[in-house]
């Protein structure tokens, strides 16, 4: 089952995800995010827009490979892989 790691900023809105290993039964990035949303309802609202696409300033990688399909999140996730969710912060 893939593992999910994410920026600590998201724990502020979803404290239930903090201090735990997140492993989900999923084959694609879309399925991974749906599964995380089951654990923390509302989670996908933060990382996806109303069309289900990854929000513009959110980055996601599968192991060390940046997500290719930002629109439908069809990238495959290996069973022993890790999905990383992070964001670009800049300015003041």
């Amino acid at each position, binding site marked *: 089952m893939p593992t999910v790691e994410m920026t600590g*900023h998201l724990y502020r809105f979803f404290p239930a995800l903090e201090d735990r290993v997140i492993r989900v039964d999923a084959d694609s990035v879309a399925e991974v995010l749906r599964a995380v949303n089951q654990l923390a309802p509302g989670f996908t*609202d*933060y990382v996806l827009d*109303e069309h289900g696409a990854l*929000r513009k*300033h959110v980055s996601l990688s599968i192991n060390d490979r940046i997500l290719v399909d930002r629109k439908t999140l069809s990238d495959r996730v290996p069973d022993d892989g890790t999905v990383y969710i992070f964001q670009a912060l800049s300015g003041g």
Partner: protein
Amino acid sequence: MPDLLLLGTRKGTVIVDRAGGVWRPRPIAHEGIPVCYAARDPRDGMLWASLDHGHWGPKLSRSRDSGATWQDLASVKYPAGARYIKKYLPTPDFDPEAPVGAPEYGDATVYKIWHIAFGSPRQPGRLYAGTIPGGLFVSDDGGDSWNLNRPLWNHESRGGDLFAGDATSENRWHGTPASIDYGVFEPGIHSIIVDPRDPDHLHVAVSTAGVIETTDGGKTWAGRNQGMTNDYMPDPESEWGHDPHFVTACTGQPDHLWQQNHCGVFYSDDGARHWKKVSQPEAGVHFGFPIAVDAQDGRKAWVVPARADSERMAIDGGLFVAQTIDGGQSWRALRNGLPQDNAYDIVLRHGLDVSGDYLCFGSTTGNVYLSEDGGESWRCLGNNFPPVYSVRFG
């Protein structure tokens, strides 16, 4: 007499309480999150804040306990099939003389919830939210769910019903520079006015399109820009393409509307059917963003003038509020207590409010000033707030 102030700032929501004649800010809420608008619903006391998350999408947040705790709501979303005709970022290589090609369509995404307005007491639970890219959303359950007002979204001034197919008319709505932060050049609804006499009667204002009115609860909409002039357009009296910075109306005399605009201050005493330019450039009253009108006397209004479009800061380093009591025929500068040297503040469109004799404004320099005598004298509530986006009495 108000006893609460809400500041929407670059770094969160600041609530300022008045107790024993002293205004005291609480520790900031929504720490670190830009809040572009915050206000109190006078019907039920609920506090609202529009969170302008750069990464996680815009969210509304509400507090049922006067700011002790807040709950973020599910995102306001465009329905599937909501499209708009794209405008192009005004980049240096943009050629305005290039032949107009076929319209390019984009799927609508909420970039910013720019304004929140509260419905009539006769419509409990009714709320309005105005967005970039130019959607008016309506809730009838206190904000739990939201629906796009389709007649305005599908208005012929935007190209018609793009849910149904391709454009059937020209898109006359232009982008607002306020959208460039999101990497787009799309319009935004920043002013929503509900007529206290008739909950089906609304005015909304759009940057950059103008003022639009409905008298049937949002089923049909019509532009109300007659008398507006737009100095920088090829046709200054064009029906569309106006950039009202903020539009407001007198609660007690709702046919008295005011707007501060790129090209002057405009006033209407006939429900926006006709606008009249009431700027007084020689007195510095011309360019600016916010405007406030007295709740009882529709001829009485205040602006915070700034130096010209190209500079956008206090005029000659002296910050002042200008007041008219005669429908804009004359203006008086109110400076007592405001800095008159080396002040370069700019006050944004939602950054000024009035409640009885109380006036307050906040600037992007983080200065907040309050008057308790209609603007005759001012005192500073603080110089070190984050950049202030909105000021509303509770």
